[in-house]
């Protein structure tokens, strides 16, 4: 039952936040924050369950098609759910001072999008999963289209078309899977466990797997399905960018880990070489393009493509160590990229520009912002001792046995990462001061956010074992395939 609360509280919070701005402009923020805090309070104690599935809830939904409203929580989905809730809270706090128009509707969309994402991480019925997958999309489109920056319309349309269009592939895929399963066993069901271990063979199985793979890779924004990502992330308001980069991208990786690999072990093994090379291509493509960006926000968006290349490799080398690394990298990347988008948002608010060519020498004016900025850029780069390093290292370590060439290339990909990171720090924070500025540094609210995120990254970097322990049962249950 408490699993339903994880969905109901944010949904309800959104509905309450919408009209609340008539009473007081801060009320939607307070309601949203309280709702997320309540959700977190529900989610945190669930970890102390005894069985493998920490919680489980199932009622029939559309019996005509054997669809059920089946939610379940294991270690991996617990981690991602908590990440969603916590970063959702940050995305609300980050715009606390901004003068947001129609603030009630803004927070309603934020909360609904988060609820949809939590649903994606919890659903154990394939159709229900798809339902949430589509549901999280519309509010995000609104956030981009209404509160985005100058090119928001194009960005919203691109985001919508890419993710919705690829979503239809998921729909066809799961329908095909369920009907093939019905033909084989006589039972029409969309339940995850019922379909597990019944991989449809032959071309049909491969095509279904391919459809799901394409959809998830589009969401993950790996090369060459990344086209929507730079413009969307750049144009979204800060809170939207944080949710997009830190959480929504992760749903693609989650889909690959939870559905593609376990449901289609043979077919995904066939596809693995291509997926691995796509991963390598993403790493380099993202890094090289990030290096050439003048727009700070765009630069971070391209680094996401690069990091998601590691995730793609980690998923398709198919061993427990790499999968551990993937889950870990998802969390670390969520924290570090979220922090970076908050910093760039703060910069844009102060300088009214995102262009690196108009920054430079910021360290003198904004010492706190700049030092946090440098810290998180280094964290994203994968500096040892910080969270991302652990994830990338585990992926590379796990991949080496299976695909040494890929691993070597991916590791070489860390060199351009260092390049773009250092260049970004250099251009934004160091160097000569080009413009006279009279701007305020981080206040206590922003400092507190940054300190919390920095502490999380350091903790993930120096003591990763607790997170690995939580994810371990889910990973081992996925079984180590060929």
């Amino acid at each position, binding site marked *: 039952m408490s699993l339903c609360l994880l969905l109901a509280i944010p949904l309800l919070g959104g509905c309450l936040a919408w009209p609340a701005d008539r009473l007081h402009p801060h009320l939607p923020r307070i309601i949203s924050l309280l709702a997320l805090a309540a959700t977190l309070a529900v989610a945190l104690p669930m970890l102390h369950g005894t069985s493998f599935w920490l919680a489980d809830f199932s009622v029939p939904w559309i019996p*005509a098609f054997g669809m059920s409203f089946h939610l379940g929580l294991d270690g991996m989905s617990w981690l991602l759910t908590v990440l969603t809730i916590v970063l959702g809270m940050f995305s609300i706090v980050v715009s606390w001072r901004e003068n947001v128009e129609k603030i009630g509707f803004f927070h309603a969309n934020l909360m609904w999008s988060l609820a949809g994402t939590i649903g994606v991480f919890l659903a154990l019925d394939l159709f229900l999963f798809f339902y949430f997958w589509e549901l999280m999309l519309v509010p995000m489109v609104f956030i981009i289209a209404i509160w985005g920056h100058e090119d928001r319309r194009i960005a919203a349309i691109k985001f919508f078309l890419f993710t919705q269009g690829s979503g*239809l592939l998921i729909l066809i895929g799961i*329908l095909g899977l369920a009907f093939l399963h019905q033909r084989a066993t006589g039972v029409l069901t969309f339940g995850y466990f019922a379909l597990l271990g019944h991989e449809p063979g032959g071309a049909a199985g491969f095509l279904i797997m391919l459809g799901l793979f394409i959809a998830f890779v589009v969401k993950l924004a790996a090369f060459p399905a990344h086209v929507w990502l730079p413009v969307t992330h750049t144009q979204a308001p800060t809170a939207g960018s944080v949710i997009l980069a830190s959480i929504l991208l992760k749903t693609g990786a989650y889909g690959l880990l939870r559905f593609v690999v376990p449901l289609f072990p043979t077919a995904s093994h066939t596809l693995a070489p291509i997926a691995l090379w796509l991963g390598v291509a993403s790493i380099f493509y993202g890094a090289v393009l990030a290096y050439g960006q003048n727009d700070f926000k765009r630069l971070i968006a391209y680094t996401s493509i690069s990091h998601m290349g590691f995730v793609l490799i980690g998923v398709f080398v198919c061993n427990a160590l790499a999968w551990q690394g993937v889950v870990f990298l998802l969390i670390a990347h969520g924290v570090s990229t979220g922090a970076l988008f908050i910093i760039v948002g703060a910069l844009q608010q102060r300088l009214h520009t995102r262009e690196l060519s108009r920054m430079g020498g910021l360290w003198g004016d904004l010492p706190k912002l700049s030092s946090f900025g440098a810290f998180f850029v280094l964290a994203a780069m994968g500096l040892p001792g910080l969270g991302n390093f652990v994830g990338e290292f585990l992926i590379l370590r796990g991949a080496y046995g299976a695909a040494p060439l890929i691993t070597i290339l991916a590791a070489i990909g860390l060199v351009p990462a260092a390049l773009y990171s250092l260049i970004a720090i250099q251009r934004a924070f160091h160097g000569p001061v080009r413009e006279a500025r009279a701007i305020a540094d981080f206040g206590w609210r922003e400092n507190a956010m940054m300190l919390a995120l920095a502490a999380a990254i350091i903790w993930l970097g120096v003591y990763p074992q607790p997170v690995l322990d939580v994810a371990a049962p889910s990973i081992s249950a996925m079984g180590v395939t060929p």
Partner: protein
Amino acid sequence: MIQAAPLAVQGIFVAVLLAAVAIRRSAPLAAAVTGVGFVAALCTIPAAMHGAAIAGEQFDLSGATYGFWAVILSVGFLLSVMGSGYWRGAKNLPAEEFFILLLVATLGACVLAAAKDVLFLFLGLETMTLAMIGMIAYPRHRPEAAEAGIKYLILSAMSSAFLLFGFGLLELATGSLGLADVLAAPNTPMAVAGLAMVGVAAGFKLSVVPFHIWVPDVYAGAPAPSGAFLAVVPKLAVLAVILRATGLPGAALAPGALHVVSVVAALSMLAGNLLALQQQNVKRILGFSSIAHLGYLLVAILAAGEVGRVAVVFYAVTYALTMVAAFGVLAVLSNAGAARDAETIADLRGLFWSRPGLAAVMTLALLSLAGMPPAIGFIAKMYIFAAGVHQELWWLVGTMIASSVIGLFYYLSMILAMAQRQAPAPAAAGMQAGGRLVLGVVSLAVLVLGVAPEPLIALVKAMLG
């Protein structure tokens, strides 16, 4: 004779309404009588269903027919409520006749939906069509409306001519006027020509490619409530006939004909969505979108089987609800006395901030048309995909995916236009209580059935028996 009570009740109310208008000309009274008539006819449906089954020659009084009747009558009721608000804006245009036409057209649609005999089929079709021409051209101060009426008149007459000639040929080939006999005609050239002509007429009424040319002009010219009727009711009635015909023994089409229908379906999906892309007029967009939706419905019809038949009805109900909601928003925003309805995308701009409730309804309707959750259109589209995948109609399903993605673009453009920040104040719009009531009911249904569709699925299954 309780089984045909809904038809009788409608007939009675047509007479009552005529008498009422003759005694006292009052639009609210006419609207009230019409509304009561629809409700009364709806109320007789449960009783009619429990009547003993009769094997009539003229009407097929099965669960499916009652189901279609219920939907058609509900749409008629909603439009009568909506119309009462809409026509109030036109000061020097008496609105009573609109309600007479509405009631007559709905009666015709019900007859058509139930017809098991070629004569009654034609009778119902003509009753509906002639009344609809009046409904389309009703605001006589608008030249576009008159133009739309004439266009619809000419093209309807042509399609009727095709239909009659086709039935004539079929009668000649089989010597019978019963739908079942006619469809089971032997495979002679004469019968094939007859069937093809009937198919052309059906294509006109369903407005599928290549019989869709009239759609944008007529939809754009018709006043919003008539547009809603035009978009929904004739299609429901023709679908009821097609569903019954495909369920008859010996109605299986030859493979060649199936290919033709498949091509028509694919072209309708693509053309409807592609042509809508460049439009600025919401009514035209809805018209093109209806072409695409009928293409989707043809996929479900081609899929046949149990899943396919349920999919057809489920999708038809969804389409009816959604179109009523979309046209309803336009109706509430419009003033019948003005030179035109609020019908361009520019009229919708900034609606989220000036009329958030209407914008929310319109967004829900557009999401439903686009097939997005939490609207019912999502489940409906899933149903058709399921039917298509089940029968392995791969290339049709592929076309449907491609055209759906194209369609997303213009649905989203309209939503984004409504969400634009700096809004010009919309034209002075009526505060139509009736229209808003209808919108509330319809959007609630779209939302609730989108989240929990099982009751409707169960109902449709029960109706189809």
